[in-house]
């Protein structure tokens, strides 16, 4: 059975940029990534897309990718089309700016209602910027459909899905009727590589762009106005650790000196 799938993806500053160089402007409560940090699709959202692509590979279907934001980069988000998604819809407007999990989930769920037909919604377990892990579960609750979180493997069969979900000390296999929403974890696997042909083909395709009024949202429900959390303060943690580097004439000696040091400070 071919499935209608929707994948929600978020654009974030590349989280793989080394921790040094990140700054915080506490007055305007904004995180400032190191200069030159490129925007990327949040890694967990990429795993969510890959999980949908694998189902499409096996049994066909349609993948619609949804992304919400203000000042989105089309070249970044087009990657989803280049690796095999069928359609890209951007919820892009100034009014969507500074959304929290609540206003993001409301907007995405409203867009999904407008799309109308769907069997499976795939989201990342959390985004790499705010790490809240709320939006996917929120969408499921708003649409009143079942959800399975922290999915490592998603298989669709006979109008149902079977999900391997990770637990602290193992796993569980969960079955759900469709439509259903899953949130996908990193153990599920990396997004396939974007080929040169894929990238070229994606460049010729245009996304649909929807504004709040297109999905029936009033300004008071969107972005900063629709928040149900208030950011009170933003700051950088203070670190005052100095590492004692142990050396030696050879690696063997350095290794032995390290062991001796640990004994000296009585941790072994």
């Amino acid at each position: 059975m071919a499935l209608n799938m929707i994948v929600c993806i978020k654009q974030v500053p590349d989280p793989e940029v080394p921790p040094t160089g990140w700054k915080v402007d506490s007055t305007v409560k904004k995180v400032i990534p190191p200069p030159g940090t490129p925007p990327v699709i949040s890694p967990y959202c990429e795993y969510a897309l890959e999980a949908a692509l694998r189902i499409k590979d096996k049994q066909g279907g349609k993948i619609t990718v949804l992304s919400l934001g203000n000042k989105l980069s089309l070249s970044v988000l087009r990657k989803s089309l280049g690796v095999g998604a069928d359609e890209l819809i951007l919820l892009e407007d100034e009014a969507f700016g500074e959304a929290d999990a609540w206003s993001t989930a409301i907007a995405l769920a409203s867009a999904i209602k407008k799309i109308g037909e769907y069997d499976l919604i795939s989201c990342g377990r959390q985004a790499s910027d705010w790490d809240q892990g709320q939006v996917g579960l929120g969408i499921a609750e708003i649409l009143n459909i079942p959800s399975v979180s922290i999915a490592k493997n998603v298989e669709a069969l006979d109008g149902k899905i079977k999900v391997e979900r990770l637990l602290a000390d193992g796993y569980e296999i969960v079955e759900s009727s469709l439509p259903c929403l899953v949130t996908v974890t990193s153990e599920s696997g990396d997004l396939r590589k974007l080929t040169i042909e894929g990238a070229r083909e994606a460049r010729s395709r245009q996304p649909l762009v929807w504004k709040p009024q297109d999905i029936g949202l009033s300004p008071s429900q969107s972005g900063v106005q629709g928040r149900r959390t208030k950011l009170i303060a933003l700051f950088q943690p203070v670190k005052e650790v100095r590492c004692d580097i142990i050396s030696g004439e050879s690696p063997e000696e350095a290794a032995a000196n390290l062991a001796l040091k640990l004994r000296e400070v009585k941790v072994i």
Partner: protein
Amino acid sequence: MAEGKGVLVLGEVVEGKLAPISLELLGGGKKLASDLGEEVSIILIGDEVGKFSSEAIFFGADKVYMVESPLLKDYQIDSYTSAIEKVVQEVSPRILLMGQTFTGRELAPKLAFRLGVGVSTDCTELSIDPDTKELMGTRSVYGGNARAIFQTLGQPQIATVRMKAMSPLEKDEGRKGEVKTIDAGITEDVIRTKVLERGKEEIEGVKLEDADVVVSGGRGMGGPEGFKELQDLAGILKAAVGASRPPCDNSWVPSTWQVGLTGKIISPTLYIAVALSGSSQHMAGCSGSKTIVAINKDPEANIFKEATVGVVGDWKQIIPPFTKKIKELVSG
């Protein structure tokens, strides 16, 4: 809606006991409650949870709300969400706390959206604003590169709390509390997903969460073989073996070994980090360790900004002589 009162904590039972996180939440919840001049209570959900109520009281609960049903025997997101929703309706708490566990992570957002309120997940500190009486939740954002304080809107104010971020109270068997049963009226039709199978990863040796010493490997281990050497070292130190995310994502080691924001949060006495860069994502899981030791060939690696002792070098050249020397010292 009338103003809510008190701090309500979701209790979790793991392996026939109240989970450590639940005792931590009672400890942290008690502090918030006393700042408010109110009470802390706990929800226990299952088919037979009465036996845990006295333990909950000994660890600080003023009230225990039990929701029992054969349908609640095993955890299932829909039935548990409905059970908590029912308790919240009856009790009208000011604050609802859950653990940032594999269940709390999904129950808290789901319930918050159902109740129409905000939620702060993965908080490491909680406090009450003395003027407004609002709950302030501090959490790590941007993979640990910044910290944020959030206030949620609506009541109850919901937060999930990171494991080991709060301390349990001393157990006091003289403590008294009230136990109340709430009928949540759970029926089959609320349950929309079915657990077909549950599997447990068998751990040889010490469990990560319980270990005093942990040896962890990262992307630089290059494959599953390297972890055998770390296991040898761990065996001598009676340590558990952990990993950063890449070895788990590449299936070099089981996903249950992962230490970090999306894995286990541990705070051993000694944490030996081998061939791992020390990403914020990873440090979120081990920064509470007393002593962090770094072994990495890149002197610029972030782990050297987190560790107190370290060696710059290739693990392949360092680990064998290090293990040998440790063996001498430990047996001598």
